[in-house]
């Protein structure tokens, strides 16, 4: 279907944009970590918040791997609703993470962005994996 084939590049671009911003945050997470801490902080507190943010970012990268695996293998490439969901969610994540990076929002916001914009599409991806490989449903 021609409409779906125009969804595919849009989905790819939004996923890559989200990925790029996550990697950028990985490299310049210093100011975001400092925004989580009170004005006077010790080095241990800094290390702890830093570790939490690193864990969050790594989980995001893992979920990206799942979704890209499903996308490139063709399992969910031509599925309309997963395509729409993925585009919407990754586009909002890109905008939100852009604000997160530039406006130095605090750490708790990142967990929300992670939950809505990375966990959700990865879960749907896994469901589609099970549906295609487990129940032999056609990936339309």
């Amino acid at each position, binding site marked *: 279907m021609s*409409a779906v084939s125009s969804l595919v590049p849009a989905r790819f671009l939004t996923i890559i944009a989200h990925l790029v911003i996550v990697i950028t945050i990985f490299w310049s997470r210093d100011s975001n970590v400092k925004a989580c801490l009170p004005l006077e902080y010790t080095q241990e507190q800094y290390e702890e918040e830093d570790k939490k943010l690193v864990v969050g970012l790594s989980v995001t990268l893992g979920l990206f791997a799942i979704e890209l695996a499903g996308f490139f293998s063709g399992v969910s490439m031509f599925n309309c*609703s997963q395509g*729409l969901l993925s585009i919407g969610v990754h586009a909002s994540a890109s905008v939100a993470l852009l604000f997160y990076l530039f406006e130095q929002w605090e750490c708790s916001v990142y967990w929300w962005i992670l939950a809505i914009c990375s966990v959700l599409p990865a879960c749907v991806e896994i469901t589609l994996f099970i549906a295609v490989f487990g129940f032999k449903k056609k990936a339309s």
Partner: protein
Amino acid sequence: MAFYEVYSHPALIRYRSSVCTKATLFAVVALCLTYIPPLLVAYRSQFWLKTSTYEEQPVVRFQYEAILIATTSAQGEYVAWSTFPHFNHLVGARLRIPALSQVREEDDNQDGKLDRLLLEMQLPLRVEEQLYSLQLLLTFSYQLFRMSTVAMQSLACVHYSSAVPGAQLFISGDLRLQQRAPLPHRGLYNIYNVSVIDSSSPFASAYEFDDIIRKYQQRNTTLLSTAMPVWKPGRAPTAPFMLRAEIHYSTETIYRPGFWETIKFAWIQYVSVLLVFLWVFQRIQTFVFEKQLLTTVPGEPAHHHKLH
């Protein structure tokens, strides 16, 4: 032979779906994403108008009350004068009555509101006395009418001291409204309509300068005189000390805007961002439903005015 477009009108296609479908979910999400983000965008910088300014020439009248204290020696001897009989009585031997050669308020542009106070007084001094400092308090009544009706009694303080004894002091200044809090936008605001100096009190404490100034500065709305003094030394021994003051009445006030004005500005901000979001989501939704990415039941293209 159809060569140019005479008229066109849109044909409406309605897409229907039942309640628990992906299409309905998508429509609800798109609705939320259209109407809520403009609020967030507009909220980031000054959504509700908390203060605003307007210009009005106030009605200022000099109340013809004054207290003058002048130091006549480097050791701190002083002479004083005022328009309050109790104060003059308390001052006793240090009373020195100046000659007021000019006290007048002028209306330059003939609009019925006075623009300036011109004050000229000569303070007679003995031959051995030298004037080192001068403090003068003048009272005014201040009224505004355009937004809320403001009526207050206020003070202008003229103060100058010098290590060099002087012959003449010329002050030119502005009487500006000094606010700690914005004024209301309507109603009567007359809590400061009590006179600054209590003229009926026979006690010296009522005329202490620091008490008067302290109580005056505790008010939320006061007048401030920004004065540029010119001190001329070299007094001839028998000449009196000349004091000339020109005080201009100036404009500009800060107030808190009312409910409807705040709503008006908030609406402008919201709608201008909403239009962008409406256009974007209209394009997205047209693409999704026209290409049937989510299954819906499209209706027949209907004309706006059905004729039958």
